[in-house]
């Protein structure tokens, strides 16, 4: 399937781009992360500690065990610091 993957804040800086469109067969967010880590060192660096990251699927905050079936957009970012 085709999926848009977005990166924000220092995740974006480490990976070096704000978004990309990927073809993946990953069943869950965690599977997608495992795939990305295999790709290049910069992904491995960004995802070295997933407990420091948050994920949103189709713009809803969720967990790393979330299935990706039907998802169009996955975003990775550090804990939010608004306000």
């Amino acid at each position, binding site marked *: 399937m085709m999926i848009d993957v977005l990166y924000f*804040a*220092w995740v*974006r800086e480490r990976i070096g781009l704000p978004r990309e469109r990927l073809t993946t067969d990953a069943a869950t967010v965690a599977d997608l992360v495992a795939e990305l880590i295999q790709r290049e060192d910069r992904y491995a660096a960004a995802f070295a500690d997933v407990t420091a990251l948050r994920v*949103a699927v189709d*713009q809803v905050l969720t967990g790393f065990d979330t299935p990706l079936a039907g998802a169009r957009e996955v*975003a990775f970012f550090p804990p939010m*610091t*608004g*306000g």
Partner: protein
Amino acid sequence: MRIVVEDAAFDAGAEVNAFAAAQRDMGAIVTFQGVVRGDGGLARMEIEHYPGMTERALTAIATEARDRWNLGDVLVIHRHGRLTPGEVIMMVATAAPHRADAFAAADYLMDYLKSRAPFWKKEYGADGAAENATWVAAKDADEAALTRWQGASNE
């Protein structure tokens, strides 16, 4: 209910007045403004957001506040982009028949907005150098604050 995410500066006083003028029989209006602090040598900050999800998350938080308290209206304005010390980052306003609801809802909105709305702050020091800029880390205290609102659906 009005949710605004914008890079332009806004006039908080004018927003408060317009919000208040639109109410009927709301005895209590509470506002919060967050202002960029310059202590610690901050020269400016850049606020990154997630277009689409940010508005969606703020709308969800404001809707939850309206479900939990007896409110007439809610306003949330949050800036992104470049801000310097003294500038207003964001504001919330709540209108309610009674003050306890207006206070609790504004407090709740701030707690959730801090930890659940997709904004990230990067701070630049006096040298303005990108390589010395740092992402603000989330505070444990902000996450802990959310537990105040769990359990009772109304207080």
